């Protein structure tokens, strides 16, 4: 593959990649050395795109660790942000406060 990557998978264990530039909905996600999914949403620079389906409640992994969990079923190519992901830490705090 000779085109420049437009997204970066930081750790091999990650199920999201970070956009290295704005990626339009419908455009292909290109990682270094491999093709990713087609973007289903617009992915702004530095935002995350799902590389594989992530079921509701499952972990979102970046830097090789669980940085959030999915609050709905996420499809490969979806923009991953506050509309479909939540902090474990904040969820635990909220549970304690209730």
């Amino acid at each position, binding site marked *: 593959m000779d085109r420049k990557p437009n997204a970066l998978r930081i*750790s091999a264990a990650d199920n999201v990649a970070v956009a290295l530039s704005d990626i339009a909905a419908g455009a292909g996600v290109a990682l270094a050395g491999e093709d990713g999914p087609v973007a289903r949403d617009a992915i702004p*620079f*530095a935002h*995350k795109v799902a590389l594989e389906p992530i079921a509701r409640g499952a972990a979102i992994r970046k*830097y*090789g*660790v669980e*940085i959030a969990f999915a609050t709905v079923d996420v499809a490969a190519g979806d923009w*991953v942000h506050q509309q479909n992901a939540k*902090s474990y830490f904040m969820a635990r705090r909220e549970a304690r406060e209730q």
Partner: protein
Amino acid sequence: MILGYGRADGSKGIRNVLLSIHTVECSSFVSQQIAASDPRIHALGFPGCYSNEYAARLMTALATHPNAGGVLLVSLGCEGTDASAMANAIAASGRPVEVLRIQEAGGTENTIRAGRQAAARMLEEMERAPRVPMSVADLVVGTECGGSDATSGIAANPAVGRAFDLLVDAGATVIIEETLEMLGCAGIVAARGASAEVKRQLQAAVEKAEQFSLRIDQFSIAPGNHEGGLTTIEEKSMGAFAKCGTRPVEGVVKVAEKPPGKGLYVLDSVPDPSPFLFGYSNPNDSEGILDLISCGSHLVLFTTGRGSVIGSVISPVLKVCGNPKTYARMSGDMDVNAGRIVTGEATLDEVGREIFDLVVEVAAGKPAKAEALGHREYCIPYKTQELCANV
């Protein structure tokens, strides 16, 4: 090959600097005037008159740093910090040390004259320091970030993490600071501990940082972070923690404590709970860099996105810039262009290797950009901390 400077206490430095240390703000001008006589003299000190155990310990650790070959202590004469006790500790390390007391020496001009004569003698003696071969395994390397932006967690920080993995694999000691930037990640960070005891130390250090930040109301992920693509506090924290790579954490150290072994260590610079409540954790980037140097860092990797120009006294600071636009604007200050990761021109592994190679070159004598420009920033505030060894 790295040709270092052998010290009488067995340590090996990559630079051979003379320190002129003021023990109170009242003697800072005289100390700076002594340092102005030769570029090999680095001036630093503590402004407070009331003695602070933390600051005295920090200055003693800096005065016995491997990169320091000799020390002038410039005292007014009536401040709380005990220059004689510091001088004894420095002399015990085998380094030449002299104390100048302005009140006894006869004021500004007489002290500057005496200080410059003493400095000339010590510099001559320091030039005779034996040159000893050093390998990467002899190096201690610290890392910190400042002036971060959306590229920091993508490019500069993980690239330094790759370099840290290479350094650890080569037998070096590496240190990451900023437990305050591990908020929300106590469990993730603790899981990196090499033993049950280290896991407990890490959990406690991050929880202390969480309590501290709650008290000073710095506990959140800001709207700007969300706009920049960060979804959770864990993600924000991990972007900073990515600087330390993936190897196990061998232990936690406090300011002025040397890591007892090789591998990756976490530096806890957050003030311990104290009745005085003084001491922000990192009042500025220079304070954090100096904390890393006080733990023996021969050099420091500083990552930035928005840009920074700082260096430090004692140890070279290498700046790794992850934002390609910032790099283009400020390339005269930047040592590594990690922005090539963002533009897709280089991989994290490639830039990590480049940082590792540059660490070796700078250890062997190549000046860092800030060093060549003459940057000598430092900051020593009042703070309260117990050493890990005492807890």
